[in-house]
């Protein structure tokens, strides 16, 4: 029994909310090339704020490259990136990046705890002393990923799944608003996968944004609420329900693979 005026006010508020809804990260016309074959071609993408987005596509589709180029780890040939509607350089403190596990030398002489402290670098600066509260933060982050007992271990002694959790703990220590994860579930055990997804969902519930490169089609609908389907160019993007369909999957992966796998996914097949 709402009055017309109230309804109009509510509509306006909704419109306002929609128009001020910032995307966590916005990419426009991004092309990246190793040598003379583009790995990504003219990709536009909007990663919604407060959502969990999966970047999906076959091997060599440019999924990891998308994250690395957006963050300036590899150079872009063209294109623009903004984070929370501002340039990347301004928004650095709001981003946490979790690289692929294999991208570092796990034989490096350092402990689990020290790796997590690296997440506090922007707070500590060049010479800031590590105080009790920093230690507290680092330990809490380790605890959130279930690794508090391993704080004093040398990082090389960890299993693959444990290494991934340490990387996640480091990103938690950064206290960011946007979490970018490169293949967080690659080569990890089931317990780690569950632990990581629990942490990511917790982040989402706190209003943070999560973007993960993902390659297990079977878990997309369970884990994520949005997808970006990528194969050098963008194939589709949006909420899982509308963008992750048999048609977009076959457009991304190719016909043959899709027909075999889509049945397992139990997706609504678009007629």
């Amino acid at each position, binding site marked *: 029994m709402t009055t017309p005026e109230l309804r109009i006010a509510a509509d306006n508020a909704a419109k306002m909310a929609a128009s001020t809804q910032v995307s966590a990260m916005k990419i426009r016309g991004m092309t990246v090339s190793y040598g003379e074959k583009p790995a990504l071609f003219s990709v536009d993408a909007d990663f919604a704020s407060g959502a969990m987005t999966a970047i999906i596509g076959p091997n060599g589709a440019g999924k990891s490259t998308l994250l*690395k180029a957006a*963050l*300036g*780890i590899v150079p872009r040939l063209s294109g623009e990136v903004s984070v929370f509607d501002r340039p990347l*350089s301004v928004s*650095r403190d709001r*981003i*946490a*990046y979790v*690289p692929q*596990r*294999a*991208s*570092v*030398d*796990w*034989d*490096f*002489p*350092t*402990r689990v705890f020290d*790796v997590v402290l*690296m997440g506090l*670098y*922007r707070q*500590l600066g*060049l*010479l800031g002393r590590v105080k009790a509260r920093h230690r507290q933060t680092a330990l809490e982050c380790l605890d959130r990923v279930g690794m508090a007992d391993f704080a004093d271990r*040398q*990082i*090389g*002694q960890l299993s*693959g799944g444990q*290494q991934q959790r340490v990387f996640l703990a*480091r990103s938690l220590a*950064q206290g960011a608003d946007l979490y970018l994860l490169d293949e967080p579930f690659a080569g990890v055990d089931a317990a780690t996968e569950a632990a990581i997804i629990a942490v990511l969902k917790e982040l989402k519930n706190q209003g943070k944004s999560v973007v993960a490169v993902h390659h297990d089609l079977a878990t997309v609908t369970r884990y994520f609420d949005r997808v970006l389907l990528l194969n050098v160019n963008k194939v589709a993007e949006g909420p899982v329900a509308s963008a992750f369909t048999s048609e977009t999957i076959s457009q991304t992966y190719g016909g043959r693979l899709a027909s075999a796998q889509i049945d397992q996914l139990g997706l609504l097949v678009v007629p």
Partner: protein
Amino acid sequence: MSAEFVQLSLTPILIGTLAAIACALPGNFLILRKQALIGDAISHVVLPGIVVAFLLTGTIAAVPMLIGAGAAAVVAVLLIEAIKRLGRIDPGAAMGVVFTALFAGGVLLLEQSDTSGVHLDVEHALMGSLESLIWLDATGWSSLTDPTALAHLPPELARIAVVAAAVIVLTWLFWRPLELTTFDEGFARTIGLPVTAIGFGLVVVAAVAAVAAFDAVGSIIVIAMFICPPAAARLMTDRLTVQVWWSVAFASLSAILGYILAGYGPLWIGLNDAVSAAGMVATVSGVILMLAALFGPRRSRVGEGKGGA
């Protein structure tokens, strides 16, 4: 005996130890970054640097030589980087091209120019003359408090002391970014660290250390000290801080033991003359590395990923 020791051995040992430490500190990070051979490349291009400095200034005064050598090291590093990127050549080969070509140029210049009147030759550059850095004015330990005697300390001592102190301070100051960029370059970039500049800074510091050490002890020790003490230290521990302390200890031990063995060793086995101190220091550091490789508590690889094989 003690007077003779202070006069003939104290200053060379001090200079050797400081040089060894100044090189070993950046060496720790170079080894972890798989850039150990940058030290090798730098020490080769020091020769063309000092020859050019000599040809330009006509003197063998220390300061122009040091500047020339430092400039050559920076030029070499830039050339290696340029060839690597522009020519898409793997780093080892790019280094090999640059340092051999520059070294060859240095030797040619040296042969072509008239350096007969000055003490400037290839062998000296390679082997140094640690033995000649004696403290003639010393009469015993009491000279350490005697201002007139102190005024006549070899100038190399002051130079290497300043450089060693600078290297120590810089390592301490930039510890955190160095550790972070060495361990995880991609992550370091995302938090806004100037990764490329830090990498270049490390190489420049290594070059300065190499040049100052080279002035005193020759290029063999320089290469050996960049690599052997940190490499041995790497096999002792899994903590970077502890590793750096071990490397300092190994560097000092190599310098002291090497000098003593070179000076007194031959006498013990009945030979008359001392052997090359620089060569002996390098040899001792190699023995230490060998022992660490055989018995070091952390000698095996543990991690997987990029470094594993």
